[in-house]
């Protein structure tokens, strides 16, 4: 493939990144998606929108989030210098709220009265319930029964925030099924409902819109690293569920050739076992949830179940822009198993005094393969996409500890 002038211009006006993306939805939803796109484009031209969002991100979410030099992790691996981008310190404990704040402002502008969302780990559900409460809008969160079981604290949090948590009983009862059910709700309640998708997936314009609301992560990192080290980082690391925290960090650096960019997929029990959530490394292109992207699927094109210890990564697809970046080779996609993530989770607790989300622990896990072999002046930024309080039950169970 010949080199592109820029990796940052996508999607094209039909919502495609190369062959990926698009608008693969039922006709009922098409007018809504076109309307959303118009509202989004209008918001970009309106300085008042940026001003309002900026104020909320600063005073309500608590941005900017620190870029923290992880001295003891750095010492432990004895190689590259490791920085953590502390999205765990945002209000509600993850990067998800950056996107929710942007989308709820769009919903208000469009006059919508009711918010729906899907959630896996519950972080996006909590962030959505939070912004819905803040703006006094009704809120329904779809969550698979399996995830409700393994993320109980977040379920209660959503309820405290006034959201209806609707258990999804279809399929494997995880994130994919929650997304199906949210789409069915949207098809039914077209008049008053705004669907806040939680990652860089779904029909155009969602992958673009969510990325744009998350790219503040990378923009801050760029500025903060210039202040700290006087230059750009050498390597970026982020975990990939649908890919929103990763895309948020990566996008502002895509055209900086000197920056190595690495996404970490969830390898579950290991790629060879078939029980994983690595759509790029273990799947092939297909069409689901409104876009063409890499998917876990069988020979017949039926979607297969993902597996990950982390509910937020337990999804058989990935955002279309990642599929494109994978195919053009700009971003390298690797993976980490449940066990590797658990080990990295504990190491981060003990060495840094930070309990990371199990999702983020997948990115941390790759440090073991990467950092020791690199020179001491090599700068790595890991996106610490969320905090791990929600995961303590899952981790306790995996470690055989009874709470």
């Amino acid at each position, binding site marked *: 493939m010949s080199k592109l002038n820029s990796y940052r211009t996508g999607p094209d006006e*039909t919502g495609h990144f190369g062959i990926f993306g*698009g*608008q*693969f*939805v*039922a*006709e*009922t*939803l*098409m*007018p*809504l998606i076109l309307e959303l796109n118009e509202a989004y484009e209008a918001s970009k031209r309106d300085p008042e929108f940026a001003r309002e969002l900026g104020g909320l991100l600063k005073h309500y979410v608590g941005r900017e989030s620190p870029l923290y030099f992880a001295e003891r992790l750095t010492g432990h691996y004895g190689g590259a210098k490791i920085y953590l981008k502390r999205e765990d310190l945002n209000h509600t404990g993850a990067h998800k709220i950056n996107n929710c704040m942007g989308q709820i402002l769009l919903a208000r502008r469009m006059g919508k009265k009711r918010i729906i969302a899907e959630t896996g780990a519950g972080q996006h559900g909590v962030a959505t319930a939070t912004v819905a409460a803040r703006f006094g809008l009704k809120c329904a969160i779809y969550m698979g029964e399996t995830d409700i079981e393994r993320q109980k604290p977040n379920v209660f949090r959503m309820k405290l925030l006034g959201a209806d948590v609707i258990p999804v009983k*279809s*399929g494997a009862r995880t994130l*994919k099924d929650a997304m*199906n059910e949210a*789409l*069915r709700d949207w*098809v*039914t*309640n*077209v*008049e008053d409902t705004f669907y806040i998708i939680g990652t860089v997936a779904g029909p155009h314009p969602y992958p673009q819109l969510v990325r744009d609301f998350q790219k503040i992560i990378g923009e801050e990192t760029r500025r903060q690293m210039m202040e700290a080290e006087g230059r750009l980082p050498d390597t970026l690391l982020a975990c990939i569920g649908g890919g929103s925290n990763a895309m948020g960090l990566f996008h502002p650096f895509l055209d900086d050739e000197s920056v190595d960019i690495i996404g970490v997929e969830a390898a579950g029990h290991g790629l060879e076992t078939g029980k994983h959530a690595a759509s790029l490394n273990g799947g092939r292109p*297909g*069409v*689901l*949830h*409104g876009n*063409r992207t890499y*998917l876990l*699927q069988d*020979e*017949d*094109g*039926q*979607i297969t179940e993902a597996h990950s210890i982390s509910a937020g990564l337990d999804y058989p697809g990935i955002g279309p822009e990642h599929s494109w970046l994978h195919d053009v080779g700009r971003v390298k996609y690797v993976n980490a198993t449940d066990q590797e993530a658990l080990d990295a989770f504990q190491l981060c607790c003990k060495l840094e005094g930070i309990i990371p989300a199990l999702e983020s622990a997948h990115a941390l896990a790759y440090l073991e393969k990467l950092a020791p072999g690199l020179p001491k002046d090599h700068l790595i930024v890991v996106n610490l996409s969320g905090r791990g309080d929600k995961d303590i039950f899952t981790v306790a169970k995996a470690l055989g500890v009874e709470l």
Partner: protein
Amino acid sequence: MSETRIDRRFKALKAEGRAAFVTYVMAGDPNYQTSLEIIKGLPGAGADIIEVGLPFTDPMADGPAIQQAGLRALAAGMTLRKTLKLISEFRISDNDTPIVLMGYYNPIYSYGVDKFLVDAKANGVDGLIVVDLPSEEDAELCLPALKAGLNFIRLATPTTDDKRLPKVLANSSGFLYYVSIAGTTGAAAPKPADVAKALTRIRKTTDLPIAVGFGLRSGAQAAEIAKIADGAVVGTALVEQVALGRNDADAVKRVLALTAEISGGIRSVDKKIQDVT
């Protein structure tokens, strides 16, 4: 595009003065053999056009009944390849009843669009309804299908306004499927008066026959629709009969009994007389 079985069937029914009864059942539900028997029995029980559902794990526009039907079929080993074989077996004894394959895009994309179109045509498919391919994605399958001589049947919904309607109709053929409510399959039935209003609006833009579906469960309801539309579509109610069947033979019996009942309702409406009054 040359005339398809679908075009011929609507023409014949128009001459006869009645609306088409369009039935939907899931391929391979509850298993290959039983679904073949159901499909073979449908024309005799009064079905004019058969929509054969292509099972998919993630049917985002379907309600619980059709979701379950798809999962039953997949659990029994149904695939796209076998769905085409099912249709070719049906064609051995019936060369007239139009067959519309209805489903989601991924299994077709995975099979390969070009190969799919050749095989679908060769096995006796007449038209396609692919729920997650709106007109924005016409280049994917719609345009190649028209070239291959298959009708591409589009859904119009209550959210399809006058501005959007021409886009939806642009490359449709065979008939237009008016989804009478915003919702998933199996939801509540529409008010005939609302449907009539929508049809009047749509007919200003197209001469295609219009079939109306979503929420129809009985002969009486279907008769109301038959008065105002060119066809009535029944799916969920039939698929539920498969689930209720005590065994395979009972499932066949139940589906065909309900088909006959609804067909009676549709046939009771004489559209020639209606046109005069």
